[in-house]
């Protein structure tokens, strides 16, 4: 299906080994250990590549680990059984061997590295029969805002993505350097003020995965996490519709609260959301103005006069793709009350 | 263990100047040259940073607005002339043309060096008056982190030159004064080369 999952066939055995072996040694873990239990093709290919590198390097490293103790024992001081050549300092064929083998291994690793780096480049769109979902990510101290530009909604604390559909992230930071990362799905990427980075990910299983900032940015750094939740297409459509309907508007007032220094939890409380620990809170925003992401990248402080508040798909200035606006036609009131609960219930299973 | 030939970068004084400090001289001047190479990395890094910041004008003045090639050209001439006069001073030292020659050329060098610094300061002041201050944009910051650093070097070199002139007044042209002058010569010509880099990259590049 995707280019990445084809690539992953290069090391199927290794991936399988990695998938069973390490989690087994980590028995007793209550929650999924990210990278070691990949939930998408990128992370899976990365794990495969990881084990491939380990296996190749074992060729050089195992002899060191085995032979060093043997040499130490055989040539220990006081023995009379082994040879002693105090002036021996070079044997040509040995030297060719100890240069040759590492060179060979590095050549092999380099070829694979070159191909894999291109295959798994976070900027490379994932080939799929479904169009990618665009999400814009903005890093704050110490929380993440996820903007769904085509749907004109945004969330804080939880990232909801449809399963099996590629997600194209555009990312920036409203403050200092941060790093956006969902280990179970794939690559991390830095986000920087006034600059945009890009990331493509795909979840191929429903579930909840931990997401994080990986780059230290102050006192609240350890709290800057979120839950990435992969849900099926119907639930995603329902989520979009409900958010439009029930979300709080992302206007100047609420944005100011959001951008204030503090954790997701603090922002959620300040925005009047009810919070149930220990889950990451989900704050839903509706009426996200067009071009908010670009405005954040462009000016500080944000010039709200340039941003026109929009609702639903009525925006004209937005380059919204026509074929997707989630559950625009579904009846919002029918499922309104139970959105969050439904998605949570499903992902828990 | 005195060697008959000293070998080090820059002008070698030759066997006529051999004395008890000859061994030290080779190491001192070579060591100072290595220090200059290390300093060159600093300038290299600043040049590279400057180039990456050319576009970072933040809506403020562009290189074309900021840079005036005329004062820079005058500064270039002053510095090149000072390098020439320092070269004459070095020759006066090597061929023992007498204290008056040496001190005369050194004084001319000093005046040219100070004139360079003064002219550059004047240029900066007029830039400040025009509102071209480092806090205006990343581009101006990178300009003011590169060019004044060179000026600061010239200032310190001039200070060193004054100190050596006083040393000559106190001790005459002894081996330590010679060692000092050989190193200062390297610094002086080095600053000339760096300035040529600045003139070409910053000023000519900005005028283009």
């Amino acid at each position, binding site marked *: 299906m995707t280019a990445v999952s084809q690539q992953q066939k290069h090391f199927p055995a290794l991936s399988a080994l990695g998938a069973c072996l390490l989690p087994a040694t980590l028995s007793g*873990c*209550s*929650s999924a250990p990210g*990278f070691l239990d990949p939930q998408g093709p990128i992370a899976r*290919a990365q794990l495969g*590549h990881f084990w491939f*590198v380990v296996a190749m390097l074992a060729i050089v490293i195992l002899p060191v680990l085995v032979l*060093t103790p043997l*040499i*130490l024992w055989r040539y220990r*001081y*006081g*023995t009379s059984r082994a040879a*002693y*050549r*105090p*002036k021996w*300092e070079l044997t040509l064929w040995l030297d060719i061997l100890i240069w040759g083998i*590492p060179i060979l291994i*590095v050549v092999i*690793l*380099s070829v694979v*590295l*070159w191909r*894999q*780096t*291109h*295959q798994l480049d976070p900027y490379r769109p994932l080939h799929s029969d479904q169009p990618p979902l665009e999400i814009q990510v903005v890093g704050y101290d110490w929380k993440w805002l996820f903007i769904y530009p085509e749907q004109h909604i945004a969330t804080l604390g939880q990232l909801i993505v449809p399963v099996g559909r590629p997600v194209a992230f555009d990312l920036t930071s409203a403050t200092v*350097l941060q790093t956006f*990362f969902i280990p179970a799905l794939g*690559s*991390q990427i830095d986000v920087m003020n006034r*600059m945009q*980075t890009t990331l493509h990910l795909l979840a191929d299983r429903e579930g909840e995965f931990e997401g994080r900032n*990986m780059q230290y940015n*102050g006192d609240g*750094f*350890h709290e800057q996490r979120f839950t990435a939740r992969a849900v099926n297409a119907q639930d995603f459509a329902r989520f979009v519709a409900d958010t439009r309907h029930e979300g709080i508007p992302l206007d100047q007032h609420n944005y100011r609260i959001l951008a204030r220094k503090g954790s997701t939890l603090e922002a959620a409380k300040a925005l009047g959301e009810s919070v149930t620990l*220990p889950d990451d809170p989900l704050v839903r925003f509706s009426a996200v103005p067009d071009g908010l992401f670009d405005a954040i990248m462009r000016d*500080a402080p944000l010039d709200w006069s340039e941003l026109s508040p929009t609702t639903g798909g009525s925006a004209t200035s937005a380059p919204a793709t026509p074929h997707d606006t989630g559950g625009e036609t579904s009846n919002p009131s029918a499922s309104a009350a139970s959105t969050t609960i439904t998605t949570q219930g499903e992902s828990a299973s | *263990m005195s060697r008959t030939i000293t070998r080090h970068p820059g002008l070698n004084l030759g066997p006529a100047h051999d004395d008890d400090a000859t061994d030290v001289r080779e*190491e001192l001047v*070579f*060591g100072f040259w*290595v220090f200059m*190479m290390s300093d060159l*990395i600093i300038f290299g*890094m600043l040049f590279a*940073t400057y180039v990456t*910041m050319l576009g970072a*004008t933040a809506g403020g003045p562009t290189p074309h607005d900021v840079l005036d090639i005329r004062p820079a050209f005058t500064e270039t001439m002053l510095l090149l002339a000072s390098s020439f006069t320092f070269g004459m001073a070095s020759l006066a030292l090597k061929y023992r043309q007498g204290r008056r020659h040496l001190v005369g050329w050194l004084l001319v060098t000093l005046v040219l060096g100070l004139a360079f610094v003064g002219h550059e300061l004047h240029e900066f002041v007029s830039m400040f008056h025009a509102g071209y201050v*480092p*806090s205006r944009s*990343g581009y101006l*910051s990178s300009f003011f*982190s590169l060019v004044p650093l060179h000026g600061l070097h010239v200032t310190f070199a001039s*200070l060193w030159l004054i100190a050596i002139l006083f*040393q000559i007044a*106190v*001790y005459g042209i002894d081996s330590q004064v010679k060692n000092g002058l050989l190193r200062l010569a390297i610094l002086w010509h080095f600053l000339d080369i760096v300035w040529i880099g600045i003139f070409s990259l910053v000023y000519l590049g900005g005028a283009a």
Partner: protein
Amino acid sequence: MTVTEILFGRLGWDALPFWHMLQNPTFKSVINDLIASGAGLMVVLGALVVVAGVSWLGKWGYLWREWLTSPDHKRIGIMFIVIALVMLARAIVEAVFMRAQQAVGLNGGFLTAEHFGQLFTTHGTIMVFFMGMPFLTGVINYVMPLQIGARDLSFPVLNLVSLGLTAAGAALVMVSLVLEPFSTGGWTGYAPFTELSYNPGAGVDYWIWAVSLSTFSSTLSGINFAVTIYKKRAPGMTLFRMPLFTWTALCTAILMIFGMPPLTVATGLLALDRYLDFHMFTTDLGGNMMNYVNLFWAFGHPEVYILILPAFGVFSEVFATFSGKRLYGYTVLVMATICIAVLSFTVWLHHFFTMGQSANVNAAFGIATMLIGIPTGVKVYDWMLTMYRGRVRMSVPMIYAVGFILLFVLGGMSGVILATPSVDYQVHNSLFLVAHFHNMLIPGVLFGMLAAVNYWFPKAFGFRLEERWGRRAAWLWILGFMLAFFPLYVLGMMGMPRRSVSFTNPAYLPWTVIAGIGALVALAALACLLLQLWVSVRDRDHNRVFAGDPWDGRSLEWATSAPPPEYNFPVIPEIYGRDAFMLEKDGGTPFQAPTQYQDIVMPANSAMGVIIGAAGFAAAFALTWYMWWLVVLSAVVMIGAAIARGFVRTTHYVISADEVRRTHEYWLREVEATTPIRRSQEQSGANRGRAVPPVEGAVQ
């Protein structure tokens, strides 16, 4: 502006570590401030004890003449190492606090985020700039001139200045415990987090000036070492006859000369941003933080090899000596060292694969990084082949060396994993990375330097270090390292970020607990090391090795007395081959009296190191707290001292040939009276520093 503000700048009562606790006493603030105040108290008490002790012993004059102003490279080397050991102790304690915090860090812990941030910043800054750098600078300072048959470094007074600057930087980091806070920006100090708008306090400024002082010091040391090796080798000591340690010292020196300036630029520009409102790395008005990252790692990667290469040199000497055998593949090892040094400038980008470059760039830098693995792998096999067909004595330096080989290859493996961009995207910024570089630096640098101390201590002080406590320390370091850092690999693969004060995933907990135990074991290792020193000093008469060759050494430093006279060699030796001293012993001609002695000219004492160091400290402290008058005063003192130095004409003094002859003849008589021992008696009191002559093929 009040007088107080002019005098003390922004320094106020709130800089005291217990101020916050008094103002706002909560459970957590009291605990954190008590810890911080305890640390501050240790600094104050430590300084008082030193001052009182020296006064009580009446040793100020001795300290001033024989140490602080002595241009002797051996004294300066020892002082560098003393700084390194003091700073090592502090940084290890900080590591224990961090590991303890994470061991109880599930949803909380006892440290505040701010305190934790300061801990990992000072820990990293100290371990790199004030433990690693002074340690290797000290060892090179001590050993290298002896190995090449020189009397001193090329620029002895400059050497004092280097020492003064490092001491000033270390003192600044220590003072930050009493007058808080230090930076929370990590040892890398990434902008824009360290910019004024995000970090207005004094912390980042402490960091900038401490690091800058260390950088200047290292640049000057690098120049000094390189010029010494190029210009001061004994006659016959061609480059390819130099001991391997000297080769690594040369490569490290060159890396210092060219690797340090980018850091000077990075911290300098950051200072311009913070002090003069520049916009180099800010988030607004065109600042670009990527420049900072590039500049920092243009220094940062060569720095890694500045740290590790001297350790490679130490291990090369240790393996050869304690295997009773020539170093296998000397030329190859030299070539590999040069390869590593050159390649180290070409890989800086692998520290930020995730910053959004194109796949081509990432792949190219990934491959360049893996290339370094080749010469490094070759080195490991050369060391194994050095032991092969030798007679290996598992003395303390050798335990460190073997521990190094076995652990270092694992670090190399994780290094290649991190060099692979597609995998780095998963483990970057995680504890996997932390585990990796500790896996290189602890078995590499720390074990290397501790092996060097155990190996060359008898040369420096005239008596061997006690062996039993040394072994305990070595084994505990190895065990402590494995317990503390192998779990971090697992945690990193589970996605746990570095620099987290606490976490919510209970799956992390068992591993952080194991790592915490490991840190305690490392603390025990430090205690054993101190006990080893104490016991050795106590029993010094039992372990004297005045004859100077306790390990049946191979290179020139073993051919002189222990401790050596200040001029090292009464007559500069002629060199006829590699392993110069072993050649003499093989030929049956060690310990020859020369036909004629000559006067020796030695550099005179100088207070320049103390003056520049003190003024440097004052300037840095004043800049940190905005005491502008003191900044100006310190600058005037520094420039004035430099100018005044130019007017000094008595920079040398002469030791008469007669005195040299008397000293040498006394030593030769003592050597004659010393019973040569076989290697089986190496650890016994019978070892007075003379070895039985080696015989080809014989198993001693």
